[in-house]
C-alpha cells in the first residue's frame, strides 16, 4: 500500500474510453484484500436547450488548482473511509454525447465504504473542483453549464 501520496493528474484529453475503464478494473485483480468496488461514470447527455440540442461538452479547467483541490478531497476521503484504492479521471476538451467524461472508482474490503466514498467524491468533485463544461449546440451555438 502507498504510504505517502502526492497530487496525481486526474485529467484525460477527450473522452474516457470504456476500454481504459475495463483495464482499470482488471488492474485490481491482484489486490485480494478488496471485497467491493464502486464506480461512477458521468456521461454527456443530449439535453434539449432553447437554442437546440446538445451535441458535445467542451471541458476546460484551472488545472493547477483543480489538481490541488482533487488531492485535498482525495486525502479527506481516505481519512474518512477505510478504502484500499481510489481513482479519479475527468475529461478535458471535447466529449460527445454518449461518451464518458468522469470516472470515479473506489475499492474497499467491504462494500459500504466504497459506495459511500464514491458518492461523496462525485458530489465534492462537481462542487469544488474548478472545471467548466460548455455545451455545444447543434446550431453551432453554445451554453455554459452550471452544477446545481
Amino acid at each position, binding site marked *: 500500500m502507498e504510504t505517502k501520496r502526492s497530487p496525481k493528474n486526474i485529467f484525460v484529453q477527450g473522452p474516457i474510453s470504456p476500454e481504459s475503464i475495463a483495464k482499470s478494473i482488471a488492474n485490481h485483480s491482484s489486490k485480494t484484500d478488496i471485497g467491493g468496488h464502486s464506480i461512477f461514470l458521468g456521461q454527456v447527455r443530449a439535453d434539449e436547450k432553447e437554442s437546440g440540442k446538445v451535441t458535445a461538452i467542451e471541458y476546460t479547467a484551472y488545472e493547477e488548482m483543480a489538481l490541488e483541490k482533487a488531492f485535498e478531497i482525495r486525502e479527506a476521503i481516505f481519512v474518512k473511509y477505510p478504502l484500499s484504492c481510489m481513482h479519479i479521471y475527468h475529461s478535458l476538451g471535447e466529449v460527445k454525447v454518449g461518451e464518458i467524461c468522469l470516472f470515479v472508482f473506489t475499492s474497499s474490503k467491504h462494500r459500504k465504504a466504497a459506495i459511500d466514498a464514491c458518492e461523496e467524491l462525485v458530489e465534492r468533485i462537481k462542487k469544488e473542483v474548478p472545471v467548466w463544461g460548455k455545451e455545444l449546440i447543434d446550431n453551432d451555438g453554445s451554453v455554459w453549464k452550471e*452544477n446545481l
Partner: protein
Amino acid sequence: MTLTSIHIIAFGMIAEKIKTKELVLEYMPDTEVLLGYLYQQYPDLQHTKFSLAINKKMAVGKTAIPVGAEVALLPPFSGG
C-alpha cells in the same frame, strides 16, 4: 510582470465576457478594491456570478491580496 502587480487569470464565461484569459494589473490591496476595478472596467461582470481564488485558494469576502499574487476569476463550476 513585476512583484508589484497582480496576475489575473479568467476562465469559462468570465474569460468570454472580458475577452481575455489573462490580465496584469497594478497592485491592489484586497479583493474589494479589485472587484470595484473589474466592475468599472467590465460592467458585464456586475450581472455575472463568479468567485475569486488567490494563489489557488478560494477567497470568500474581503480578502487581502499578497504582492505578486495570481488571482483567478472563476465562474460557477460545471465539471462532471
